[in-house]
């Protein structure tokens, strides 16, 4: 079998205030997969995401990206390979203009001039935001900011795209457009979400994290139709949505 794009083994972590959030997580994601990471509030999903590109350092266990261990000397390369889109686009868009923000990542990788410009244009084009290149981020709508946030990460040409609650706070049309963008991308995707229909639509496979450990892994259809599992981990399907009656997308 090929080396997984993402390999997490026995990962445990406690925050500096002493609160332990992860209790031994195991997770593999392979090339080309789109995986949903589900779980109730406070399960440790965001904490796990922050380990994937070495923002937080494992208290126990390990993380590797395409075989490269996430450790201090490899951080730059790991951060190029793993693109994380955070929950709040305002945190992600910290530069004064859309252009400067999308440039930030590739410029840190050493790109300049025409090569940099080409990356920026390509990334903004992928998310349909090229017309906004010279605007300040805080003058964009929330949905537009979310799309630019995705572009800032795409500009680094990552091997795996990690999205933390990509559909939160989007209106139905923006949510739909973002789904189209994600589907159109040719990268491995790990998507943290509370939006179960979104997971069902976009990700063939789902992993459930609860109380800092993985409690289920299977096709999204299996996971969403396992009533005992769902209720044990505070996962609820929205009113009127029944995966049993909807064909697998």
């Amino acid at each position, binding site marked *: 079998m090929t080396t997984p794009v993402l390999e997490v083994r026995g990962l445990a972590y406690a925050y500096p205030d002493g609160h332990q959030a992860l209790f031994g997580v*195991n997770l593999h994601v392979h090339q080309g997969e789109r995986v949903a990471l589900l779980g109730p509030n406070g399960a440790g999903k965001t904490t796990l995401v922050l380990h994937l590109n070495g923002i937080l350092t494992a208290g126990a266990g390990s993380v590797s990206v395409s075989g490269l261990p996430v450790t201090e000397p490899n951080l730059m390369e790991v951060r190029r390979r793993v693109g994380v889109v955070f929950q709040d686009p305002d945190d992600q868009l910290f530069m004064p203009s859309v252009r400067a923000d999308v440039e930030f990542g590739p410029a840190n990788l050493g790109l300049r001039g025409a090569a940099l410009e080409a990356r920026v244009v390509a990334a903004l084009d992928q998310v349909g935001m090229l017309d906004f290149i010279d605007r300040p981020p805080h003058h964009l709508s929330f949905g537009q900011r979310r799309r630019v946030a995705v572009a800032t990460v795409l500009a680094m040409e990552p091997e795996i795209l990690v999205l933390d609650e990509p559909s939160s706070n989007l209106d139905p049309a923006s949510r739909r457009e973002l789904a189209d963008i994600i589907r159109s991308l040719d990268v491995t995707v790990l998507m943290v979400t509370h939006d179960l229909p979104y997971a069902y639509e976009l990700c063939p496979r789902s992993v459930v994290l609860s109380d*800092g450990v*993985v409690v289920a892994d299977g096709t999204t259809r299996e996971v969403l139709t396992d009533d005992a599992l769902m209720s044990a981990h505070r996962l609820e399907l929205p009113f009127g949505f029944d995966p049993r009656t909807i064909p697998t997308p």
Partner: protein
Amino acid sequence: MHVPDGFLDAPTSIGAAVVAASGVALALRGARRELDDRTAPLAGLVALFIFSTQMLNFPIAAGTSGHLLGGALAAVLVGPCTATLSITVVLLVQATLMADGGITALGTNITLMGLVGVWTGWLVFIALRRVLPKRPLWVVPAAAVAALVSVPTAALAFSLLFDVGGTVDVPFATVATTMVGIHTLIGIGEAVITALAVLSIVVVRPDLVHGARPSLERRTLTIREGVSA
């Protein structure tokens, strides 16, 4: 207390600018030690916090109100070096974007508020912290006294500068007594508000208060059985 252009003569303004530049240079190095590469985003948001609290009006009486200056508060919350940087940037923003405080008086203003205000507050604070019990809540009275002392001290520093390089001959005693007198009253308000603000932070996030940061204990991690995904 934003000194405008032309208040002090050129040599004094230049002298103050040199002092400010050296102080800020030292703070830049110190802050990198305190915060490493977190310096810029954190000091930026702390600057914004100080700027915003200066916009928060505290009613006094009969329709009058005042606001926080925040030098001692910033020092207690994020440490003196980061506080100096944050206040410097607040003053820079106010001078260039709000026409508040003269652009040629920037050195004077940074010296008074970013250096004298912050460091007086900090020194008083650590002196008190040494003698007070070592529990997080005791930073509250220490911060109050630090604020109470730092405001009139900055006013005294202003009076000294005005004596050296003021463009009008006014007896030092007159300027000093008036400035220090008014700013002692202001300092009382500053002390109360600083104490209340620090209190509200220390009860929920003691780990964020630089002056109260307890040594963090390492915990052993628990491992639970889960599914291998």
